[in-house]
C-alpha cells in the first residue's frame, strides 16, 4: 500500500512537471526550425535569431523593457526591504494592518484591475499636478507597486528567521541601531534582497496587462509588441525571441534560487560550527 501510493504520487509529480515544461521545450526546438512553416521540421537553422537583430521595433521595445525592469526592481527592493523591516521589527504601529494588506493584495489582485485603476490615477494626477506623463515613469511606478509585494514577502521571511542576538551584541558594544542593522542584519538578508531583485526583474520584463494600461500611446514594452504579434498566430521569429527571453529569465531564476539555497546551506553550517 505504502509503496504503490508513493509510486502513484511520484508519477503525478512527473506528469505535472512534464506538462509544465513540454510546451516550452517544443517552442525552443521549433525556434531552430529552418522551415518558415511552424508545423514542419525543415532542418536546423539559427536564421530566425539573426532576423531579430534587424527588427528595430523589437529592439527598441526590448531596450525600454530592460530599462523599466532595472528601475522598477531597484525601487521595489528599497521599498520592499523597508516594508519587511517595519513588519518584522515593529510589533505594533499605526497603519500596520493597512501595510500588511497593501503588501499582500497586489499578489492576488487581477492585473486588469490594478492596471485600469492606476491609469485612472495617473490621468487624474496629470490634470491636478501636471505629473506624471504616461510612458516610462508611469510604467516604472506601476511595476514598483506589484514588485514591492514580492520583495516584502521574500525579505520578510528571511528577516524573521535572522538571529537578532548578533545585532543586539553589536548594540551592546556601542553601535547605533542603524549601524547595527546596516553592518550585521543587512549582510544576512542580502541574498534575499538580491534574489528578489532578480525575481522582480523577470516579473517586470514579463508584464503585459498593467503596462498596456499605463504606458500610453507613445511607449511599447517588449510584451506589448509580442502580444500584438502573437495575436496573429504562431510564427518562427517569435519562437526565437520567446526562447531567448525564456533562457534569460530562467538564468535569473536559477541564480536567485542558487543564492537563496547557498546562503541557507552556509547558515546551517555556521550554526553547526557554532554549536560545537
Amino acid at each position, binding site marked *: 500500500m505504502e509503496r504503490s501510493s508513493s509510486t502513484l504520487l511520484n508519477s503525478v509529480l512527473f506528469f505535472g512537471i512534464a506538462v509544465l515544461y513540454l510546451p516550452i521545450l517544443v517552442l525552443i526546438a521549433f525556434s531552430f526550425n529552418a522551415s518558415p512553416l511552424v508545423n514542419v521540421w525543415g532542418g536546423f537553422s539559427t536564421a530566425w535569431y539573426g532576423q531579430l537583430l534587424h527588427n528595430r521595433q523589437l529592439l527598441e521595445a526590448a531596450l525600454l523593457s530592460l530599462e523599466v525592469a532595472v528601475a522598477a526592481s531597484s525601487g521595489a527592493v528599497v521599498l520592499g526591504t523597508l516594508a519587511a523591516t517595519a513588519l518584522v521589527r515593529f510589533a505594533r*504601529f499605526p*497603519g500596520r494592518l493597512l501595510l500588511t494588506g497593501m503588501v499582500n493584495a497586489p499578489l492576488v489582485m487581477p492585473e*486588469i484591475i490594478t492596471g485600469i485603476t492606476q491609469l485612472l490615477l495617473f490621468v487624474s494626477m496629470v490634470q491636478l499636478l501636471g505629473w506624471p506623463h504616461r510612458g516610462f515613469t508611469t510604467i516604472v511606478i506601476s511595476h514598483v*507597486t506589484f514588485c514591492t509585494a514580492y520583495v516584502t514577502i521574500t525579505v520578510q521571511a528571511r528577516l524573521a528567521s535572522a538571529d537578532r542576538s548578533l545585532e543586539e551584541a553589536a548594540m551592546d558594544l556601542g553601535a547605533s*541601531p542603524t549601524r547595527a542593522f546596516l553592518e550585521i542584519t543587512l549582510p544576512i538578508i542580502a541574498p534575499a534582497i538580491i534574489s528578489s531583485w532578480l525575481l522582480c526583474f523577470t516579473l517586470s520584463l514579463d508584464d503585459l496587462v498593467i503596462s498596456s494600461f499605463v504606458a500610453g500611446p507613445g511607449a511599447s514594452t517588449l510584451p506589448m509588441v*509580442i502580444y500584438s504579434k502573437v495575436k496573429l498566430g504562431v510564427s518562427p521569429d*517569435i519562437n526565437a525571441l520567446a526562447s531567448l*527571453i525564456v533562457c534569460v529569465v530562467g538564468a535569473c531564476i536559477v541564480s536567485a534560487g542558487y543564492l537563496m539555497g547557498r546562503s541557507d546551506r552556509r547558515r546551517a553550517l555556521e550554526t553547526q560550527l557554532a554549536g560545537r
Partner: protein
Amino acid sequence: MRTTWRPGRWLIILPPLLFLLVFFLIPFAFAFKISFAETAPRVPPFTDVISFTRDHHLHLAVSLGNYRYLLTDEVYGVAYLYSLRTAFFSTLICLALGYPMAYAIARAPKSAQGLLLLVIMLPFWTSFLLRVYALEGIIRDNGFLNALLLRLGLITHPLHIMRTSVAVYLGIIYSYLPFMVLPLFATLEKLDRTLLEAAADLGSTPTRAFLDITVPLSIPGVIAGSMLVFIPAVGEFVIPSLLGGPNNLMIGRVLWDEFFGNHDWPVASAVAIAFLLLLVGPIAVYQYYNVRQLES
C-alpha cells in the same frame, strides 16, 4: 532601548506605506469616482464627477447610467458567470493535480526537495505571456499534441481545441498550477510526521491517517493555493484572448475591450468596481489565512 528608535521608525515605515497608499489603494477611489462619470469627447474621455462652480460651490454630477448598463446589457452578466465558473473548475483541477504533486515533494528526500521546488518555481516566474503562446504551439490544430495523437493512431482527425472553452481551461491550469503547488507544499512540509506514526501505531491505515490527519492539517495550504489560482483566474485576460474563441468572454476581456476597443473609460471603471466587489470576499479569506500562517 527600542523606544529610543521611535522617530527613526517612521523613516522605515512611511516610504512603503505612502507609496502603496498613493499608487495602490487610492487608485481604487479614482476608479470608483470615474465609474459615475459619463463618456465625453475630450482628454481624458469622461465628464467631471466632482467640480467647483465659479462661485466656489461644490458640484456633483453623479451618473448611475454605467451600473444600470451593466445590469441591463446581458454581456456583462454572462461574462461574470462564465469567468466565475471557469475559474472555479480550473481551481478544482489544479487542486486535484497540485495536491499529489506537493505531497510527493514534501515526502521526497530533503536533498531532492530544493531541486524539485526550483523545477516547479521556474515556470511560475517565467514569462506568462510566452508560456501561453507556447501552449498554443502544443494544442493548435496542426500542433504537437495532434501530431503525436495522429502518429500514435489514437485519433484520425485533429482535435479542435483552440478557440474553445477547453483551451481556456488548459491555459489556466497550465499557467496557474505552480501557484497551487507552492503553498500546499509549504503546509505539507511543516506537517508533524509523528502524528502519522502515532496514528499508525494506534492501528490506523495509511489512507485513514491521510484523511484524518494530513488533509485537515493542510487546509490552510489548500485555501491559500485555491485563492492564488481562483482570484487571478477570474480576471484573466491573456488566456481567453489568445486561446479562447469569441464565445469565451471572460470579464477581463470584456473590460479590456470596453477600454481599448470602445474607449469607454467610465463603463470600464464600473466593470472593474463591480468585479472588485465580487472579489472582496475571496481576497479577505486569502488575507486572513495568509496573516495567520505568517504569524504561526
